[in-house]
C-alpha cells in the first residue's frame, strides 16, 4: 500500500485532442483527481454570432475533425427548426447515410487504432507483429468503407461540402454507389470479428451509471426523443432544461450534470437504451453479443461501438440498394426570426445545438452541448474509484489502467472546449 503518491500524465495519447491528468493520493486515500482538457480555445460560440445562417454549419464543422459531420448535421437541424422548414425525405435519408459513414470511420479509428493496442499489450498499432497484421488490414478497409460512404454522399468525409441547410447540392453517383455497397459488404465480416474481440475482452470497470441517449426509431442517430436509464423521456428540444452546467476551473472545458448527477452518453448508453431498434440483420447475427446489454461495464462502450458499426453497414446497404435518388427542385427558404433546437447522436454521444436567428437570417445566439463535456464529471469520478480500488498496485499499473479507462470513454477533447460560456469565472 502506498501512503502518498502522485500520478501526472501530461498529454494523454491515443485519444482525440489534448488532455492531461493529475491524481493525488495522500495517507492512502485519493485526495484529488483532475482531468484537464488542455485544448486551446477557438471560441466558436462567439464566432458564429452575427454570421449569416447558411455559412454556419460549415463553420461549426471545423470544431472537430473526426466528427465534423455530426456538428454540421446537428447545427443544420437547429437552423431548420428555427426557420420552420422540414427537409425532404430524400435529404433525411442522405443525412442518415452520411452520418453512418462517419460512424463507421470514427468507430473503426477508435476501436482498431486506439483500443486494440491495449488488448494486445502493445503501445501502438505501429508495433503490431505479423499475427496482428491481418487486423491492421481490416482496420484500414473498414475505415475506408466508412470514409468512402461519407464521400459519396457529402463530397468529402471531413467538412463535406454538399450538405447544406434544407438540401444536398449533389446526388450520389450510381457507379460509385455500387462500389461503396460492395466495399460495405466486404468489410462486414471484419466488423463481425471486431465484435467478437471486444466481447471476449475481459477488461471490466463497473459502477452504477445513469445513461442518457437519443432514442431513434431506426437507430439512425438523427431523430427521436431523449431517454434515460431512469425511465425519463424528454423531447430533444427540451434537453437543455435537464442539464446543469458545472464550471471546472482547471479544465478548458465545462462539465455537465443531468438533473444534478453525473451521467454517461455514447455508444454504451445507446445500446442500453435502444438496442431493439438496431437493423434486423445486425440483430440476427449478433444476438449472442447483444444479450450482454444492458451493461454497466464501461469497457462495453467499445463492444457497443463495434455493434453499431455493423448496424451502420447493414442499414446503409439497405438504403443504398432500395433508393433511387432523384434531383429535387431547389429548396426555397423564407428567412424569418426564430429559435430552434435539436439533438442528434454523435459518435461519442448526444450532441445538442440551439440557434436563434434574427429576421435577416443572422445568428443572434448559438448554444451547443458536446458529448465529452457531458461525460467529463463521470470520467473523473470513475478514475477516482479506479485508483481507490487499486491502491495496492504499483503506480505504472494504475496509470495504465487509468489511460485504458479514459480511452474506453472515447473522449474528444477537440470538441469539448468550444462551447464556452461568457460568465465563465
Amino acid at each position: 500500500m502506498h501512503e502518498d503518491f502522485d500520478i501526472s500524465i501530461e498529454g494523454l495519447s491515443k485519444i482525440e485532442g489534448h488532455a492531461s491528468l493529475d491524481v493525488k493520493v495522500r495517507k492512502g486515500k485519493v485526495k484529488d483527481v483532475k482531468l484537464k482538457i488542455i485544448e486551446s480555445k477557438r471560441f466558436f460560440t462567439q464566432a458564429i454570432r452575427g454570421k449569416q445562417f447558411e455559412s454556419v454549419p460549415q463553420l461549426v464543422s471545423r470544431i472537430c475533425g473526426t466528427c465534423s459531420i455530426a456538428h454540421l448535421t446537428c447545427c443544420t437541424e437547429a437552423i431548420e427548426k428555427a426557420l420552420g422548414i422540414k427537409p425532404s425525405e430524400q435529404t433525411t435519408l442522405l443525412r442518415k447515410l452520411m452520418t453512418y459513414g462517419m460512424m463507421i470511420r470514427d468507430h473503426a479509428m477508435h476501436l482498431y487504432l486506439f483500443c486494440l493496442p491495449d488488448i494486445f499489450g502493445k503501445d501502438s498499432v505501429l508495433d503490431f507483429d505479423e499475427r496482428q497484421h491481418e487486423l491492421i488490414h481490416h482496420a484500414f478497409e473498414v475505415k475506408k468503407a466508412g470514409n468512402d460512404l461519407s464521400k459519396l454522399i457529402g463530397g468529402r468525409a471531413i467538412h463535406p461540402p454538399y450538405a447544406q441547410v434544407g438540401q444536398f447540392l449533389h446526388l450520389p453517383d450510381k457507379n460509385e454507389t455500387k462500389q461503396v455497397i460492395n466495399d460495405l459488404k466486404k468489410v462486414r465480416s471484419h466488423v463481425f470479428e471486431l465484435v467478437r474481440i471486444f466481447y471476449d475482452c475481459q477488461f471490466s470497470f463497473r459502477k452504477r451509471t445513469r445513461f442518457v441517449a437519443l432514442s431513434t426509431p431506426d437507430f439512425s442517430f438523427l431523430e427521436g426523443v431523449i431517454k434515460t436509464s431512469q425511465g425519463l423521456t424528454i423531447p430533444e428540444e427540451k434537453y437543455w432544461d435537464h442539464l446543469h452546467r458545472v464550471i471546472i476551473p482547471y479544465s478548458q472545458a465545462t462539465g455537465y450534470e443531468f438533473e444534478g448527477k453525473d451521467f454517461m452518453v455514447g455508444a454504451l448508453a445507446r445500446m442500453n437504451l435502444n438496442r431493439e431498434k438496431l437493423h434486423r440483420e445486425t440483430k440476427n447475427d449478433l444476438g449472442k453479443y447483444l444479450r450482454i446489454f444492458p451493461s454497466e461495464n464501461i469497457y462495453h462502450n467499445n463492444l457497443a461501438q463495434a455493434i453499431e458499426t455493423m448496424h451502420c453497414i447493414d442499414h446503409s446497404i439497405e438504403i443504398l440498394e432500395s433508393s433511387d435518388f432523384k434531383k429535387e427542385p431547389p429548396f426555397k427558404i423564407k428567412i424569418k426570426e426564430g429559435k430552434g433546437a435539436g439533438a442528434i447522436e454523435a459518435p461519442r454521444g448526444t450532441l445538442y445545438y440551439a440557434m436563434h436567428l434574427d429576421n435577416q437570417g443572422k445568428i443572434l445566439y448559438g448554444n451547443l452541448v458536446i458529448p465529452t463535456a457531458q461525460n467529463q464529471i463521470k470520467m473523473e469520478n470513475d478514475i477516482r474509484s479506479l485508483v481507490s480500488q487499486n491502491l495496492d498496485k504499483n503506480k505504472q499499473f494504475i496509470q495504465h489502467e487509468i489511460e485504458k479507462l479514459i480511452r474506453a470513454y472515447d473522449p474528444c477533447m477537440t470538441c469539448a472546449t468550444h462551447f464556452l460560456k461568457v460568465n465563465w469565472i
Partner: protein
Amino acid sequence: MKLKVGLFSFTSDEGCSMIFLELMNNHFFDWEKIIDFKYFKLLKSKNELKDLDVAFVEGAISTFKEEKKLKEVRKKSKRLVAIGSCAVDGSPSNQRNFFSDDKKEEIELVLDEFGHRDKVSALNEIVKVDDNVSGCPMDENKFLEVLNKYLKEFKVV
C-alpha cells in the same frame, strides 16, 4: 534507413490528422517500411522529440506553451512542414483575432487564465517553415507530394 517523422498538433480540429489516418488506409504497409514515426500522439504513447528529419505540424499557435513547443519542434527537426489551413495561414483557428471589441472583452478572462497569446499565429510567424500543404482539411495529394519529396531528399527511396 527510414525517414524519421513527427506529427504535431496545435490549435485546430485535428482534421488534418484525420486525413493523415485516412491516407494510411492505402499507404500504411508502404510507409511502415520507410517511415519511422518517432512522435505521433494519436497512435502511440511513447513519443520522442529528438533528431527528426521532418516534422509535420497541424494547427495554429494560440498559447505561450504552444509557441515554446513549436520552437522546440523546429530545433529538433531538419525540416518543418505546415499542414492545413490553420498552420499555413492561421485560419479558421485564428477567428478570435478578428472579433469585435465586445466579443474580445467576453473572452479576455479565459485568454488570461489559460496563457493564451494576444493573437493566434500561423507557424511561419514564429518559426521557419520549409513547406506548406494548404486546405481545410489539408489537400491529400499535395501532402503526398511533399512527403515523397522528403523521402527522396533524405535518400530513403
